[in-house]
Every structure is written in structure tokens, then in C-alpha cells.
């Protein structure tokens, strides 16, 4: 019996079985990076649209907002550089000789990245041509919508903003702890967040001329006035939005607040930065409203939704205006006031904004994990139906829940 057992043991030793399994493939360690505007704000607009347009990089068929947003940023930055480097200090700038070359340069850069101007928004011709292209006639160049707004933006805010800029197109980058981190489940224990701003410094502000509009608006802001009493040197960060001023309390209003607070936090991480007192957002489209924009504004005024109400002649012209007639001229001062938004940077709102974006990143990461688990795209990313978004969305025909239902048209 003992011999038989020993025999079996010998056999066991001879054909020793190694029970260990294969290693498990380790994933590369990559900290996912999120752009504040390109990722986080886009996700908040609609997660499913974000998945297709941003993560899958499916180009929009009519990239009006995307194109114009990039265009106006590029135009303002390039205009500042020419103001600084070519000493184009006298405003207003002539559109054909000064502004048009800036537009063409930005258009060229955007085309090389595949961002082509939507028709009727921008004339791409550099001079007269037999070919009308998509313009009304062949007498190019035409000052279409984008050019009208670019001209207004440069000539309205250029003289006041450019002298205050200390550093343009400052790239901001920071990392934060990954929200709702789970070992072996989350892609990383950190996430990166990025943004680009212009920075105004207190030195420049103190040297500005007394008729500088930005200084005037800043000094009208009680929070700003309170803060500068306590600080010798500080900064203001600036960003541009190719859109109308949102209604207070609306998602856009809140998201832009978060964005500015987060920019301020990112800026504070840079070693050469000073305390950021306020952020300024310029809503460029307010400088020239077309019919549809004015209809919207009228509605906001009637419903007391907007924070910048017209008065006097502006109020009267707006209320008396009928959409079938030509749009009334609103006063420059009213347009200016609507186009600038000053957002004080406060610890509480800063932390609240960071937490809000942490939560957004947490949601995005969960959606990604769901997809990696094999749920499919449409089950992993929920649409956020909202009429205005869905109407302009390329993916509404295959979205499970677009606002306004599915009424197909051809084309």
C-alpha cells in the first residue's frame, strides 16, 4: 500500500503539474486629458453628440458653431499680435486692408485642419473672380456674417483690450485626482485638464488710459473693487465666445461660470502667475445681432430673463420691432454691455466649479468603461435632448431620443 502510494507520488513528481495561469496583460498607463471647452462643455451639451463629434472626431456637416468659435478666437489672437508687432494702434481698422488679411490667414490655418467655413458665413475668395463660388456674386471679397462680427469684435474691444494683454494664448494644464476612482477599473488615478486664455496683468491695467472701457466696466463691478483694495498685483483672464449672452441660470450661463473658475485654478498652478481676481468673457455675437438673434433677445426682455435689460430708445426700438422689418440699430453702449461678462473668482465658487467638472469627468469615464465592457455606443452614452442642440445635430436621425421627435426630411 505504502509502495503503491509512493509509486503514485513518484508519478506525480515525474509529471508535475504547474497550476499557475498566464499573466494578465497590463494596460498602458495614460492620464486622460480633457479640454475644458472641447470636452467638458461639449459633454454637458449632449453626451451622445460628444461621443460622436469629439471622441470619434466625426466632422459636423454644417460646423457653424465649431467653425465660428475657432474663427473668432483665431481672429482676435492674430489681431492682437498684429496690433502689438505691427503697431497698428489706431482704431477703427479698415476691413479690407487690416481685418481681411487676418481673416484669410485664420481661414487658411483652419482649412489645413479640415475646418472649412460653412456657406454664407464667410467669403473665401481673396479677390475678384469669375467664379461666384457660394457668394452672392463674383465681386469678392464679401463681408459676410463672420466678417461682420470679426470687424465688430476687433473695432469694439480691440482698442480697450489689446493694451491690457500681458500674455496671449497662454496654455493652461493641470491634473486632478480621478473622481470615483476604482483600482483596476478606472483608466487612471488622475485626469488632466487643459485650456487657453489671454492674461491681463495689473501692471497693464494701471497703465491704461482713463477712457478704457474695460477698466470702466471693471470698476463698476463691486466685487472687483473690493478685491483690488487688498492686492498689489493680480491678473485677469479673458476668453471669447462666438455666441450670444446666455440667460442667467441657464445651463450655458452656469457652465461658463465653471469654465472661468477652472481657468483661474489652472492659472494659479503656473509658477509665474499672480492671483486671478476676475475672468472676463466676451460674447462676440452680441456686437451684431441678426434677425433670429434679435427675436431671441426680444423674448428674453419680454420675459425678464436677461440680466442686461435695454432701456430708453433701445427698449422702445426692440419692443416696437416686427420680425418682417429690418432689424433696429441698438445703441453701441447697450451692445457693449451685453457683450462683456465679468465673473469674480471666489474660493467657494472655484471649488464648486472644480467639483462640478470632476463630476463630469467621472461621468465620461464611466461611459467609456461601459463601452469597453461591450455595452455598445448608444447604450453607453445617453443623449440629452434639447431642441436647439438637436435641431443642429448631425446625429439626430440615429439618436434614440432627439428633441422634437423624428420628422425626417430629404435632403
Amino acid at each position, binding site marked *: 500500500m505504502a509502495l503503491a502510494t509512493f509509486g503514485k507520488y513518484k508519478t506525480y513528481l*515525474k*509529471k508535475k*503539474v*504547474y*497550476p*499557475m*495561469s*498566464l*499573466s*494578465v*496583460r497590463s494596460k*498602458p*498607463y*495614460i*492620464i486622460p486629458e480633457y479640454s475644458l471647452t472641447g470636452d467638458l462643455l461639449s459633454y454637458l451639451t449632449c453626451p451622445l453628440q460628444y461621443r460622436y463629434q469629439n*471622441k*470619434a*472626431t*466625426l*466632422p459636423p*456637416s*454644417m460646423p457653424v458653431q465649431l467653425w465660428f468659435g475657432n474663427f473668432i478666437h483665431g481672429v482676435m489672437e492674430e489681431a492682437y*499680435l*498684429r496690433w*502689438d*508687432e505691427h503697431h497698428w494702434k489706431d482704431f477703427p481698422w479698415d476691413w479690407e486692408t487690416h481685418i481681411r488679411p487676418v481673416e484669410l490667414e485664420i481661414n*487658411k*490655418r483652419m*482649412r*489645413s*485642419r*479640415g*475646418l*472649412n467655413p460653412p*456657406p454664407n458665413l464667410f467669403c473665401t475668395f481673396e479677390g475678384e473672380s469669375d467664379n461666384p*463660388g*457660394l457668394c452672392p456674386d463674383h465681386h469678392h471679397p464679401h463681408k459676410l456674417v463672420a466678417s461682420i462680427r470679426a470687424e465688430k469684435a476687433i473695432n469694439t474691444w480691440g482698442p480697450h483690450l489689446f493694451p491690457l494683454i500681458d500674455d496671449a494664448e497662454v496654455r493652461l494644464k493641470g*491634473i486632478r485626482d480621478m473622481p470615483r476612482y476604482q483600482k483596476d477599473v478606472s483608466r*487612471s*488615478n*488622475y485626469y*488632466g485638464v487643459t485650456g487657453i486664455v489671454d492674461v491681463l496683468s495689473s501692471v497693464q491695467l494701471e497703465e491704461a488710459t482713463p477712457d478704457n472701457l474695460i477698466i470702466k466696466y471693471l470698476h463698476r463691478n463691486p466685487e472687483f473693487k473690493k478685491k483690488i483694495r487688498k492686492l498689489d498685483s493680480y491678473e485677469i483672464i479673458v476668453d471669447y465666445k462666438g455666441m450670444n449672452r446666455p440667460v442667467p441660470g441657464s445651463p450655458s450661463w452656469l457652465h461658463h461660470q465653471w469654465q472661468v473658475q477652472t481657468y483661474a485654478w489652472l492659472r494659479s*498652478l*503656473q*509658477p509665474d502667475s499672480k492671483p486671478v481676481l476676475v475672468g472676463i468673457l466676451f460674447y462676440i455675437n452680441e456686437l451684431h445681432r441678426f434677425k433670429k438673434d434679435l427675436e431671441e433677445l426680444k423674448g428674453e426682455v419680454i420675459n425678464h430673463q436677461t440680466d442686461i435689460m435695454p432701456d430708453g430708445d433701445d427698449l422702445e426700438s426692440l419692443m416696437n420691432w416686427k420680425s418682417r422689418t429690418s432689424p433696429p440699430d441698438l445703441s453701441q453702449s447697450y451692445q457693449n454691455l451685453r457683450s462683456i461678462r465679468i465673473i469674480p473668482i471666489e474660493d467657494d465658487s472655484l471649488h464648486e466649479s472644480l467639483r462640478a467638472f470632476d463630476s463630469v469627468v467621472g461621468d465620461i469615464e464611466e461611459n*467609456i468603461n461601459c*463601452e*469597453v*465592457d*461591450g455595452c*455598445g*455606443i*448608444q447604450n453607453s452614452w445617453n443623449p440629452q435632448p434639447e431642441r436647439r442642440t438637436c435641431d443642429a445635430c*448631425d*446625429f439626430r436621425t*440615429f439618436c434614440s431620443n432627439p428633441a422634437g421627435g423624428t420628422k*425626417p*426630411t*430629404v*435632403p
Partner: protein
Amino acid sequence: MILWETYQDIVTKHLNRRIRAEDNPDQNQAISAPLTQSQFLVAGPGSGKTTVMVLKILKFIYVDDVHPSSILATTFTRKAANELRSRILSWGDEIRQVLLDDPEFEDLHPDLRGLDFNQIITGTLDSISEDVLRTHRDPGAPPPVVIEEFVASGLMLRIGLFDGDKHHNDDLREYLKGLRGTIWGLNTPEMARNLLEIKDRLYYDQVYWNQLLENKDHPGFLLALESVAYYTQYLRDNLLYDFASLEAEFLDQLIKGKLDKFTTTLKMVLVDEYQDTNLLQERIYFQLAKHALNNGGSLTVVGDDDQSLYRFRGATVDLFTNYQTRITEKLNITPQLIYLKQNYRSTRTIVEICNQFCQLDPRFQPARVKGKPPIEAERKKDYINFPVLGLFRDDLPTLARDLSEFIHKVLNQGYSFSHEGKKYTIRADPQEGSPADLSVLMSSPLELSSSGKPRLPLLLRKNLQKYDLNVFNPRGSDLERAWQTALLCGLIMECIDPQCQVQDTIEKLPSQAKHNFAVWRNKAREYWEEDPEPVKPLSLKRFVDAWQTRTPIGRSKWKSNVPLIELTYQLVTWIPHLKDDVESLVYLEAVTRTMSQTGIFNNFGGEILHYDDEELNQASVREAIWNILVPLATGAIEVDEGLLETLPDDRINIMSIHQAKGLEFPLVIVDVGSDFSKNYPAQEFKRFPREGGKPCNMEDELRTCSPLEEPDRSPRDRAFDDLIRQYFVAFSRPQDVLLLVGLESVKDGYHTKQGPRRIANVATGWSRDGKWHWPLLENIKHI
């Protein structure tokens, strides 16, 4: 900031990296070197190269007080740059946290809090060049505008070939055939690719143009140069750059001292994958190094000549193997040579076979870094030392069937076998293992051969499906042949151009495009006849009918301008894979990207017009076909694999050996001969070359007029060297198990009327002198 000993302690205890001299002398030597010590790190596979680079960088910051913005580190790919950056941020932050939590370092806390690792300059050389040129450009100068690779392809097609009808020119075709060594596959996009390669080499090898013109007189060559000249002139006229001209501009500005603001602060330069550098890049690195040395810093280059795979993209491995001589001549410094020879990835058996493989060909040794030691197995001992396995079968279907069964068993109950008295079971980890732990590597992952015959990747995919196993092989089929692209493009063509009315008026349509258009259109017609869901509120058939007759639905008038992208997205409604499946979405992205980004030379901006002017309408359709659908149909467009990051990890990876570089898998299957049933001369270039092939022909053609001069090694030797390197990379990917697969004929030979024949094959242990060092592959365990 802190002492080296403190840094070493923190790295060992908190980051769990054993970098002490007694644990890892090579890594220790590399990381602890003083900041003025330039280094030449020859890093074998699995030696922890990224770890070394990251810890060197953090050591410069924490121990040597180097400011992060003074450190520049380049990698070969964007993915590698992301990994490097992520690791720096993560470990940098962890070390900082340890120091912040320790009151002993209280006086350092303000400095620690101010540390911003994002200021370290990391990226590919292209991305760094672009950033630096943008940030430090002259006042008034525009920033560089860099076009993507496939925009460059489209431009070369249009400007280099279609203008002037060069794609039909016999002299040019003859010349390119000579360079390639074959006429096979020389279609229009391939001609454009070859011209771009010539263009790249002119930059990368720093060729003297005038000397070239004096020395070459083949009419085809002159035409090729003309195409390249038109292309580069177009870029210059439009102030555009491609990657090669961007790097050339970067070098030019460095030499002229126009980037002094950038170079005055540069101190530490680290270059990864140096074995794939070219002369232009070497010059850039040496310029950067000059400044770093002047600023009290150093240059560290890291790489492995045995893993140099990019000769075909202009890389010159000699710059690596002769690095020490070259840098001493140019910069008068002697870098410290360190071999990172410890392999932490693989089992002892796998390390042994890798060493054997790269040493078995005596004529390969002079091509390697002198004195290079074999790699050493240093992986922790808690693993099973599986033998190297072989699975060879008489024919391809049987091979695919048995290989699939093997894979299925590994992923389930385990695959058991006996070897030298021991019983082994190969089994994926029951809890955390997945199909992603396995990969199949081959020189080409295409599912079909050029003649349309199924290859191993296709048969494997079909057999694995029987076990409910999926594969991940994004390069398995050409974009134009993928069913998703075929169906979508067919529907697009049928909508915009019913009955080929416009297509038939296009002169000189490439024949490949014509063929694919016909296939696509057929697929589309078959598909809408099936009446796919959704049928309500609008069926696909009704949608297509409306388009074909331009009859509006749900609106009063047909739109005068309809972007092709809009039509494409609407069609996705009836192709569910395209909206829900990650892989299919990548095909959709390639199609829509082509539409939006060829706008650089589109008159109609990728739109289909509908005006009273029928000629104008047809012109818009013609342009869409020519600028968008022809490139798609002729293989000019590739998918963006970077978009596949969210692919479920429940798939077995099938990839080319090139794609596998830098990666590791628990189990790796290497195809060493599923294509080789007999000793066909046409296949020799893949296993036992007679000539150099296109990369060597290009080198020889152009390097005579470059500072590099004629290569030392013959074209045939270079081709052999490259094959050895390719399979060395393949054999060094696995952690636990290496399985070689192929046809029996590769192992045992085959019989002919004239007698028995063997198939000479580098991958199975043949050296170029015709000796078989692994006869009958008896050195491995056959299953």
C-alpha cells in the same frame, strides 16, 4: 532639492521600482548619473526603458534642481509621448506627496508646491518642432500650419500626379517600378506614396539637390523630382508644412540662432527610439545638445538597434550603431555607454531564444552595436518557464482550425501538454484573464492576399467565431474593401449619381476606382432591396429614390447646397453598425474625414449642388467623386487606429510586427510561415531576400548625394538585417508563452519531382549563408 539617496529610497519604497545598484546596476547607473553626463543607453526589450527615462527626468528635477521647462524628451509616437508624460506626472506627483507629508522637508514645501511637471517639453519631434516654432516665431511671422499625412497624400495625388497626367506616364512608372523592384501593386495612390517617400528621403537624408540633378538622368527620375518640386512649392506658396519640411525648418532656425529664447533655457535632452532616427533628426538633436551642453546639461539617447524597423520610413540605423563615434566627432563628448540588458518581461526560455536568434547569423553581428551583451532574464521567479512552442500543419485551413482550438482552450479549460517529463497547462487567468492577453503577430495582417485568396488572419477570424471569440485587426482589410465602407460609399454614389451618369463622363478614372465603384454600387442596391430597418417613418429605398430624382420629402424645395457629410450621416440611419460599433465608427470617421479635409482643394466644399444650371450641378458631383470617392476607392485613406481606444478588451489582437513594437502580451503567436507552402521566388523578400527591395533601393538611389554617402552594407545584407530585427521584435513580445505557427513545409520541407526542398526562412533560424541553425525546428516543442 533632495539627496540622491533620499530620492532612491522614495522611488524604491513608494514607487516600488528596484533601482538600487545591488538590484539593478544598469538602471541605477543610468538614473543616478550626474546631470552633465551624456549617455548612450542601449536598451534591450523589456528592460524598463520608460521607467529609466522617467526616473532620470524626475531625478534631474528633485535632486539636481533642474527646472522642468529646461527638460526636453522626445518619443517616436504620440501614444508613447502620452505614456511618458502620464508617467512623469503621476510619479512626479507621488514623490512630491511623500515629501510634502514629511516634516523633515518642510523648508522645501513652497518649492514643491510650485513644481509644474507640465512644463517639461515632451512629445514627438514633430509636435515639439511645431510648438517651438509657433511660440518663438519672429514678430509678425505666421505660426507654422502643418498638414496631416493624408492631406499630404491627397496633395501629392492632385499636384504631383493628376496635374499633367503623370499617373499615366510610362517613364515615371518605369522609374518607380525600378525603385520598388516590381510593377505589382503600382496603382495611382501607390505612386503618390512612393513620391512622398522620395520627398521625405530628400529631407531626411539631407540630400544635395544639385548633385542629385547632375548625377541622375533617368527621365522617370526627373519626372519624380518634378512632382516633388511642385508639391513642395505648393506648400511653400501657401505657407504650409508637412512633417519633413517642418523638421527641416526647425533645424534651419536652430542653426541660424532664431530660437535662442528657447535654447538658452534648454539643459537636458532625452531622445527615445534613437535607432529610428534619420540624418535630419540627428542634426536637430545635435544642435539641441550643443545648447544643452553649453547650459551645463547633457544629451541622453535611448534605443535598441536590434529593434530598428523603420528603414522604409527613412530611418538610418547606422546613426545609432555608430552613435559614439558620430557624437564625439560633432560635439567632442564621450557619452557613457550603458547596456540595459536586464529583461523583466519574459521567461528565461523566451529570453534565451531571443538571444540565440539574434546571434545565429554571423553576418548580422557587424551591423549591431559593438560589444553588445546578450539580454538577461531578470523577471521575478514566480512563473512557469514554458518551452517555446510550435504549431505547424499541412495546409492553411487546418492550421487555422487547430490554432483556434488552441486559443479556445487557453481561454477556457486550459491547453495541456507534456514536455521532457513535465506536464504543462497554459491557461488564461480565470478571474482577470481575457482574449486581449493573446496576440497573433505577422509581417502583414491583411486578410486577403493580393489575388483575393484568404490568408491566416481571415481563416482565424472565421474559426474563432465558432467559439464566440472575436479578433481585433483594424488593418485586416483595406478601408475600401471593408463592408461598412463599401455599403456606405455605394449608397452615397447611388444617391448623388444614379446610373453612373456623371461617373461615366470622368476621363482617366483609375481602374481600381472603377472596379470598387461597381462593387460598392452593387452592394448598395442589394442592401436597399432587403428593406433594412427602420422602415418607418422613411425607408431606405424611399430615401434613395428621393435623392436620385432630387424630389424633396418633408420640405417644399430641394436644398441648393447639400454637404456630402450630411447625406452620409442620414444614410447611417439604416446601417446600425456604423452608429453603435466602435470599429465600424472608425470607418465612418475615415469616410467623413476625407470629405471634410479634402476641402483644401475643393471648389464646391464637398457639397452637392442643385441649381438651375445642370452643368454646375454635375460639376459638383464630379468633384465629389474625384476628390473624395476616388481616394477612398484606391486605398489612399487609412483608418485612425487611435480612435479604437474604447474597443472592448474581449478580442484577440491580430497585428503586424511593426504595430506590436513596444507592446507586450502574456501569450504571443508569431506567424513564421503560413504563406509559404513552397519555395516561391516571389515570396523570397519576406523570408530570404535576394535583393534589397524598395527601402534599400531608395537609400542607394539618394544617399550617394547625401552626407551619409553610400551605405556600408550591401542591399541584400540590409534586407536580411531588417528581417532579423523584425522577428527579434516579434519573439521578444511575449511574457509567458511564445508559439510559432506556419505550414509544415516551412518546418519539414516538401517534395518535388527533382527531390526534397527546404524553404529558407530567417524567421525559422536560417542565416543568409544558407545554413539552417534550427533544423526542422527541433529546438521547440511541437503541439
